[in-house]
C-alpha cells in the first residue's frame, strides 16, 4: 500500500469517526449521571441543519458550529424539562425527541436542499504540516477533529479528577443517596443533558460542515444510534469512545476502499459489524462482572428520580 493511500485512509477514518466521538462523549456524560437520552439522532440532525444554515448565511464557521451547539442544547432542554421536572419516561421521551428532531429539521430545512456551502477546511501549520508522513497525519486535520479529542479528555478529567464529576457519577450510581447528602440531582442531570445536547449538535454539524457541503433530510443516517451503542461499547469509559469510534468509523471507510481493492464482501456484512461488536462487548462485560460489584454501568441509568422529602 502506498503512503498517500494510507494517509488518505487515516484522514477518512478521522472524518468518519469525529461525529461519533462528539455525540458519544456527550451521551456518555449524560448516562454517567443516570439519564438515558435516546434522542441523540434527533439532536444531531438539528445541529447539522443549524450549522448548515448559519454557514450558508454568514460564511462564518465559528458561528455555524456555535449555532449547532446551541441548537442541540435547545432541543435537549425539552428532553431535560420533560424527564427531570415532569418525570416522563426517559426511553419514550428520547425516542420522541429523535422523531421530533428528524421531522423538524426536514421541515425547517426545505429551502436549503438545493444549496451548497463552503466546507470548514483542515488546518495547515507552516513547517509542521509539511513534515512528510507525520505532518498530514498529526498537524493537518480538521480543527473539529482536534476538538473532539480534547472533549474526550475533558470529560474524562471532569468525571475522574474533579469533585463535581465524582458527584455526577454518584448521582448516576444512587440518586437517592446523593439527594440525602444534599446534592441537587435534578440540577446535575439537567446540566449533563444540556452538555449531551451540545455535543450531539456539534457532532451533527460536522456532517454538514466538514463531510459534505450540502444539507439533506436524514443526513445523520443512524449515526446517533451508533453513538448510543458506542457508549455501551466503551463501557462508559471516555477514552474507549475514541477506540470504538475509530473502529466504527474505520469500517465505514473500509467499505469504500474494499470496493477499490476488489474485495468481495457484501457491504451489508460490514455495516453489521459495529452492532455485532456492541453485543459482544455487552456480553463479555456481563461475564467479567459476574460476582463482582458493577463499577461501570450507572446503576440508576434510566430510572426516574422523584424526591420524597
Amino acid at each position, binding site marked *: 500500500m502506498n503512503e498517500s493511500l494510507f494517509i488518505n485512509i487515516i484522514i477518512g477514518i478521522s472524518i468518519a469517526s469525529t461525529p461519533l466521538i462528539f455525540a458519544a462523549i456527550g451521551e456518555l456524560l449524560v448516562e454517567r449521571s443516570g439519564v438515558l437520552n435516546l434522542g441523540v439522532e434527533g439532536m444531531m440532525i438539528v445541529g447539522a441543519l443549524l450549522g448548515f444554515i448559519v454557514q450558508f448565511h454568514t460564511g462564518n464557521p465559528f458561528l455555524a458550529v456555535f449555532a449547532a451547539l446551541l441548537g442541540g442544547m435547545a432541543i435537549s432542554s425539552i428532553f431535560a424539562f420533560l424527564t427531570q421536572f415532569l418525570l416522563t419516561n426517559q426511553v419514550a421521551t428520547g425516542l420522541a425527541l429523535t422523531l421530533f428532531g428528524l421531522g423538524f429539521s426536514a421541515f425547517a430545512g426545505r429551502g436549503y436542499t438545493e444549496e451548497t456551502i463552503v466546507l470548514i477546511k483542515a488546518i495547515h501549520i507552516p513547517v509542521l504540516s509539511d513534515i512528510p508522513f507525520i505532518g498530514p497525519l498529526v498537524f493537518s486535520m480538521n480543527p473539529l477533529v482536534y476538538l473532539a479529542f480534547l472533549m474526550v479528555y475533558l470529560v474524562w478529567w471532569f468525571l475522574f479528577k474533579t469533585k463535581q464529576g465524582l458527584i455526577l457519577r*454518584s448521582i448516576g450510581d*444512587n440518586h*437517592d443517596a446523593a439527594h440525602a447528602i444534599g446534592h441537587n440531582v435534578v440540577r446535575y442531570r439537567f446540566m449533563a443533558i444540556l452538555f449531551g445536547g451540545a455535543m450531539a449538535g456539534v457532532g451533527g454539524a460536522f456532517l454538514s460542515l466538514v463531510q459534505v457541503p450540502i444539507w439533506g433530510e436524514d443526513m445523520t443516517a443512524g449515526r446517533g444510534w451508533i453513538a448510543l451503542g458506542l457508549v455501551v461499547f466503551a463501557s462508559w469509559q471516555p477514552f474507549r469512545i475514541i477506540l470504538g469510534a475509530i473502529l466504527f468509523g474505520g469500517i465505514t471507510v473500509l467499505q469504500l476502499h474494499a470496493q477499490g481493492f476488489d474485495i468481495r464482501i457484501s457491504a451489508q456484512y460490514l455495516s453489521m459489524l459495529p452492532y455485532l461488536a456492541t453485543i459482544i462487548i455487552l456480553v463479555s462485560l456481563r461475564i467479567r462482572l459476574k460476582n463482582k460489584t458493577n463499577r*461501570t454501568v450507572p446503576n440508576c441509568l434510566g430510572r426516574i428520580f422523584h424526591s420524597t422529602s
Partner: protein
Amino acid sequence: MNYQLEVSNITKSYGDLKANDTVSLNIKDSSIHALLGENGAGKSTLVKIIYGSLMPDSGEMRWGGNSYSPKNPFEARENGIAMVFQHFSLFESLTVEENIILGLDGVGLNQNFTDEILKYSKQYGLDVNPQQVVGDLSVGARQRVEIIRCLLQNPKLLIMDEPTSVLTPQEVSDLFVTLKKLAADGCSILYISHKLEEVREICSEATILRGGRLVQSCVPQDHSQKELAEMMIGKKLTELARSKINVGSEIFSINNLSKKSDDLYGVDLENINLTIRQGSIVGIAGVAGNGQDELMELLIGEKSSGDGVLSFNGQDVGLLGSHERRQLSMFFIPEERLGHGAVPDMSLDENMLLSRPDSSGMTSSGVIDWSSVASYSEKVIDDFNVQTPSSKMLAKSLSGGNLQKFMVGRELIRNPELLIVSQPTWGVDAGSANNIHQSLISLADNGSAILIISQDLDEILSLCEQIHVLSEGKLSEAVDMKNNGLEKISQLMVGGES
C-alpha cells in the same frame, strides 16, 4: 446546664396529618440522647428538620445557644451536625475514599484522604480499607464508612437513625464502644432506635414521641423496658404466652440438606436436618451471614434444593417453586422487604394479590376482583395497625416497619399450615412487634406450624419451644433449654461445639 441543641415547639403538617405537633427536645453537650417512638410517631420528620432536609411549619431551634434554622443539609453540616442514615446513603460502585469525599463539603479530589481516613479508623476502632469498593463490603463495614464520613466533618452532633437494626451482636457492641468514645470526646449523639435494651445501655436521656406529640423526656435507666415500651405505644403490652401447646404430627422436615452457594461470598449449607410438628414454633437462632439467606432461599423455593430433602405433609416439595408451595399452604415472609417480600413499585393491593394462591377468592377465572383484594388488604391494615393512607399506596412509600407489618399480616390472615418467617420484627417498633408476636402465637395455638429464623435471640427465646442454632452453614440439634440452654445457644452462635 448547657444544651448543644434546643428544639422548641416544632410543628410540621402534611395535609391533615400532623407529623410533628409542638415537639420539643433538648440535647446536652457530650451526651447520648435517645429518640424513641413507634413507626410513624414523627421521629424521622423531627430528625429531617434538625438536619435541614425539611422545613418546619412553626417552632424554633437553637444550636449552641444561637438561633438555628437550616434550609438544607449543607447548612446543617456547616454547623456541625452529621447524620448516619437508616438506609445507608453510600454509592456501591465507588470506593470507600470516594464515598467519604462525596459527603464532605469543600474537599476536592486532589487532596489525599487516605491517611485522614485511617487516622479516624484507628482512633475510634472503625476498621475500613479506603481503596475497597463499597459494593463488596458487609453491612457493618458500610456503616463504619458512614460514621467515618460523619466524623471527618468534626461534628458536634451525630444523628444515628436505627444504627443497629442491620448489625450482628458483635458489630453492635463494637459500635457502642465507638459511640461512648465519641460522646466522651465532646460529640453529642441523637440515637434513634426501637431497641429499648440498647437505649437503656448507652443513652443518658430519652425523648419519647407518640403520634407526632411529645410524650415525655426521661432518663431511660429509671424505667424498665416494659415501661418505656408502654410509653411509646400508649397502652399496656400483652404478656406473651402460649395458651395451649398442642403438638401434633410431623408436618415439615428437612433431610440431609447440603448445598454449595453460587455466590462468591455465600455460605455453603452442610447436612441440615430439621423436623417441625403441627402447632409448634421452631426457632433458628444465629448471627447473620451464617447461612440464613441461603437456607431461606431454598425453603421459599427461590432456588431448587433438589430431590428428597424437603418434605411437607409427606410430599417432596424440593423441586416446587414458591407459588406451588403456597398452593400447598406453605407460606413465607422473607427478610428483604423490598424486592423479595414485596414489589416496591406496586400498591399494597397488588402486592396482596401477588402472593395469593389461585384459590384465594380474589380472582374468578383469572379475572381480578379488586374489591375483594382491597377488603383483604384493608383487613390486614386494620388488624396489624399498618400506618398508611390507603391500600392503594405503593409498597415502597411505607416505612420499613410498616411494610413489615403488612407483609406479616398478609401471610397470617391465610392461616397457613406452615409459616416460614425470617426476622419477623426487623425494624418494627415495640408495640407492633408485640402485636406480631401475639399473632404468631395464636396461629400456632390453632395448630399451625411456624419456623422462625431470627438474629434476635430474645424473640426466639420468648416464642419458640424448639430452638436450633445455625452457624457456618451447619444447623445444631434442638437445644435442651432446661439444662443451661442459654449458655449452650451462645456457644453455638459463636461457632463453638456443644
